[in-house]
């Protein structure tokens, strides 16, 4: 290289043009000023920047209150809120290099596919590739997974690249899901979704929802909002617990009996309501719809929402009106001739079970004669139909029940002012055509009679229990204080018992529980006319007949396997319910207490029973049994080995194990384990659970205590 020498000694050779310096200085200054102008414009004139900034400012954000639980009438937990998680992936995360993604995407797709079994590995891979191509920062991977799922998912390839507290790209967003603990009474428990309110959840939303609080929060890494200073601006109020009138045991019995009946008769839909006679408390409410695939779903609340022609079950009201208003006696008779009676252009027909010629009011009721009731109504009220309707109105039949569960269909009873009113309307009304009532409205009418003439409003909720323990009872409300004189009511009750003993429901007369009631069989009105070969069968009954505790209705729409009458289709379902309730000792049959069955062990053979109920039967009838091996099961399954020896095996209602809550935020952990019926005690003041007294996998026993330690 050339010899280097400092050349500062030759000043004349220097090119020191000032303009170059000045030009560069000016340009640099200009650019710096430009950045200042830009900063000011971002701060004051840039609407988008303001919008971007807002998402990252400390904000008062709503903190959702935890929704209250729903209990059954004995305090058993029916519905609770459990934490679940939506998981997202941040494909723009630092640390997610092309090499890591490429080498693990296949394994991850396989792991996801194997675990969730909802997509093939190929589909998952395409999905992940798509997210990666877009460098999507909030790519949904899977929604609504449980805490246990989360613990597995976080160990998957790609997701497991994590430091002590930071998982590359994996984001979990917690929320609460309503859990129907036993999966029963879906429809009557209902839901609240957006503005749609269904069932008890909907009707008591104001109590269950609690009130949102607010909290100052900021977004942190991974897009999660965290509280800035711990406290709340407005404290969220946890929702109140609603104790429903439903009885878990009765609900299960009713649902199972209905399902069996639906399958046996391949019916279109069916509905069962069991009501406590004295208080109007709905102890069970079940509905089923047959789907094209011959599956039966509880997807519509027919009992409340479907007003249909009641048919013969309305004869109770007609009977009441005739006896009360026109002083008819059960022995008064009328000519039904050959079971046909023509009024104007229409003919009333009787079923084959009704005797011909002159029949008494008693026979007309227990054999369900359309001709007799139609003729009586026509002859006694033909000139003055308004008087008949007035009598019905006195029974509040035209008024909705106004029960707290939303979605009630309005009853329909025609009036002479209606355009469609004709000379035949009234007599047809008297045996149940031309008017529409819901199963629950019919049941309420019957319940009033069974309750000695005091009609009470159906109730779905026993009490509201505030988070602080304050309990507000929902008292029974009287709808009609006195439907008729006591003597008259007793007569009608006796007639209803006779329906079972001799009449249309005599198919269910044998049994350990005496039942009274009334059948109904209606032609279905379809495609503009009454279909002579399609029916709706119903039965409204009460039991035990001597001292009624429960009133129930069973409606089976369009049964298709040969049987179609209320007595042969609906009544057996009600009897099954009554018998099982009796077996489980939900009520006693007073007069039969001392009469032991001939072979007592056979009587309780192959039954699922609460242990306490079984023990009582065993004591009463001297059954021999061995204590089941499992310690004190709540429920047992019986098998008779001889006439008086029973083998017991424990029944687990629902497989529930203590979950692993280690690492979970304390609040989530508490909801999870309390949702399973455990009682929690928290030791320590940390944010997360570090240890639990019951190890994961331990079977849950209600009200057992679990200690959660935090740091």
């Amino acid at each position, binding site marked *: 290289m050339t010899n280097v020498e400092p050349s500062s000694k030759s*000043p004349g050779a220097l090119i020191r043009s000032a303009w170059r310096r000045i030009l560069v200085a000016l340009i640099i200054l200009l650019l710096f000023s430009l950045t200042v102008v830009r*900063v000011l414009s971002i701060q004051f004139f840039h609407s988008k920047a303001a919008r971007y900034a807002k998402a990252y400012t400390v904000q008062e954000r709503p903190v959702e209150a935890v929704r209250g639980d729903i209990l059954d009438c004995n305090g058993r937990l029916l519905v609770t809120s459990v934490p679940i998680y939506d998981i997202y992936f941040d494909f723009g995360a630092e640390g997610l290099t*092309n090499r890591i993604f490429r080498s693990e995407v296949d394994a991850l797709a396989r792991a996801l596919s194997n675990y969730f079994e909802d997509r093939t590995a190929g589909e998952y891979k395409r999905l992940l590739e798509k997210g990666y191509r877009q460098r999507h920062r909030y790519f949904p991977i899977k929604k609504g997974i449980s805490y246990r799922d989360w613990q597995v998912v976080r160990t998957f390839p790609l997701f497991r690249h994590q430091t002590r507290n930071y998982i590359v790209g994996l984001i979990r967003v917690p929320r609460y899901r309503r859990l129907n603990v036993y999966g029963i009474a879906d429809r009557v428990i209902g839901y609240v979704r957006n503005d749609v309110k269904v069932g008890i959840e909907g009707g008591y939303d104001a109590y269950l929802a609690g009130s949102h609080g607010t909290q100052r929060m900021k977004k942190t890494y991974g897009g999660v909002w965290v509280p800035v200073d711990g406290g709340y601006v407005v404290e969220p109020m946890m929702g109140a617990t609603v104790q429903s009138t439903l009885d878990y045991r009765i609900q299960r019995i009713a649902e199972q009996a209905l399902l069996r009946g639906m399958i046996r008769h391949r019916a279109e839909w069916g509905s069962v309501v069991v009501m406590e006679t004295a208080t109007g408390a709905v102890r069970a409410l079940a509905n089923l719809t047959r789907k094209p695939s011959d599956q039966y779903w509880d997807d519509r609340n027919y009992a409340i929402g479907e007003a249909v022609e009641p048919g013969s079950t309305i004869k109770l009201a007609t009977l009441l009106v005739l006896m009360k208003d026109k002083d008819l006696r059960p022995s008064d008779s009328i000519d039904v001739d050959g079971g046909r009676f023509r009024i104007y252009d229409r003919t009333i027909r009787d079923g084959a079970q009704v005797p011909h010629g002159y029949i008494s009011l008693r026979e007309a009721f227990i054999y369900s004669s359309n001709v007799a009731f139609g003729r009586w109504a026509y002859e006694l009220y033909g000139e003055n139909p308004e008087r008949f309707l007035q009598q019905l109105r006195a029974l509040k039949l035209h008024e909705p029940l106004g029960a707290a569960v939303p979605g009630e269909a309005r009853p329909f009873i025609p009036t002479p002012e209606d355009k469609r009113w004709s000379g035949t309307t009234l007599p047809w009304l008297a045996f149940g055509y031309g008017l529409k009532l819901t199963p629950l409205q019919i049941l309420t009418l019957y319940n009033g009679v069974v309750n000695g003439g005091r009609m009470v409003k159906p109730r779905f909720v026993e009490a509201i229990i505030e988070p602080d323990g304050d309990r507000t009872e929902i008292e029974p409300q009287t709808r009609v204080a006195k439907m008729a004189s006591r003597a008259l009511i007793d007569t009608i009750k006796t007639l209803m018992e006779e329906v079972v003993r001799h009449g249309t429901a005599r198919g269910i007369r044998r049994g350990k529980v005496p039942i009274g009631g009334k059948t109904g069989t209606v032609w279905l009105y379809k495609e503009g006319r009454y279909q002579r070969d399609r029916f709706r069968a119903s039965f409204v009954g009460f039991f035990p007949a001597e001292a009624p505790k429960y009133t129930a209705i069973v409606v089976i729409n369009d049964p298709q396997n040969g049987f179609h009458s209320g007595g042969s289709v609906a009544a057996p379902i009600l009897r099954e319910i009554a018998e099982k309730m009796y077996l489980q000792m939900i009520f006693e049959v007073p007069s039969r207490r001392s009469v032991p069955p001939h072979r007592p062990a056979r009587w309780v053979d192959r039954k699922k029973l609460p242990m306490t109920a079984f023990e009582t039967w065993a004591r009463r009838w001297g059954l021999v049994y061995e204590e089941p091996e499992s310690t004190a099961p709540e429920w047992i399954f019986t098998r008779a080995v001889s006439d008086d020896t029973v083998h017991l095996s424990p029944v687990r209602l629902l497989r529930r194990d203590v979950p692993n809550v280690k690492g979970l935020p304390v609040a989530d952990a508490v909801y999870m384990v309390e949702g399973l019926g455990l009682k929690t005690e928290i030791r320590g003041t940390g944010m997360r659970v570090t240890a639990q007294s019951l190890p994961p996998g331990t079977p849950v026993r209600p009200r057992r205590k679990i200690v959660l330690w935090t740091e």
Partner: protein
Amino acid sequence: MKDIFKLEGDRPLWYAIITLLIASVVIMASTTKVLGYRTGQPHLIIWLRHLTFAAIAFFLVFRIHRADYRGLLKNPWIIPIIYWFSILLLVLTLAAGVEINDARRWLRLPFIGIQFQSSDIARIALLLFLALRYITDPDHQKPNTETPFGEAMQQQLFRYILPISLTTGLILIADLSTAVLTGLTAFVFLFMMGLPLRYLIAWGVLAAGLLIAFFFIAPYIGIERAATWQNRLLQMNQDTPPYQARLAMAAIHKGTFLGAGPGGSILRDFLPNSFSDYVYAIILEEYGWLGMSIILASFLMLFIRGLHIFHRVEEPFGRGIVIGMTLLITFQALFHIMVNVGLFPVTGLTLPMVSMGGTSMLILSTALGLILSVARVHEAEKQSHSDPHPDPAYE
């Protein structure tokens, strides 16, 4: 004794450096939290490490400014060796570098485990090399009007343009923005050193043409980053800026007058590289106009004092070093700020002396130390002119 600790060279420039280092240490106290969260290390440790680097950087500036920059000329091979070594590093990086965010820009030193961006070293080496080439240029001593245009171009091609092209070209493959920054710095360097305008215009047009051609050809010759560049440039014109740009805008918007206060940044948790590529936005978010003024004033001071020293010094190699290093730092700061405020497409450039990154800070300290060294020697020399004793530096 007192003189041992005396800050010599140029006082205002010293103040600018110290201000930047303090600002860096302060802002890192906030941004290291994110890094700590992600790496699992206690963030205090990360911050202390940064503090240590800042202290070492200060010491390095001090040490170098006390040395005589002319030592680099003692042996004519020193600077060429540095230059070719930097080229070797660039090649090594491309061949065996560490991939961060899909680009190979970092080289990990074996055994020590320190990572650094080889382009940081290459830029300084290039400018030193150009300064050397300049003073050995026989033409620079007289305004060259006699040499025919073509012949002069040919001479300049070998003297300046090929070294520049080699460095920028190697950087370009992994890092477009740093390449542009390096090329621009070298170009303005030549401008400031007095290369006649007609040549500059000719070279400038040529470089711009090549760059545009490269931009469009790159995707077809297998350079994977090309897609990213094109995306970013296209995104500049879109209604919705890219993610980082949106977050930076949010941070700046929130800053306004007083800012969110120390540690009050929220965007630091979201902005990728809030501790390096987007530190300016975070400073604005936390310290508002005050932070902005301090940073801008420091860099403007640095630039103006650099120009001032450049103006005062007569010795051409010292002038070359001063203007080269000044432009290098100023342009990098300017680019960083423009990216942060959204006047330039999203790209990863650190804010000199402020962003986290120990080695980068040390390399820039060397550059600053050299500027101050030139200033100090020049001052000492001026004193020696009035002094009967000759300057000991001249032996």
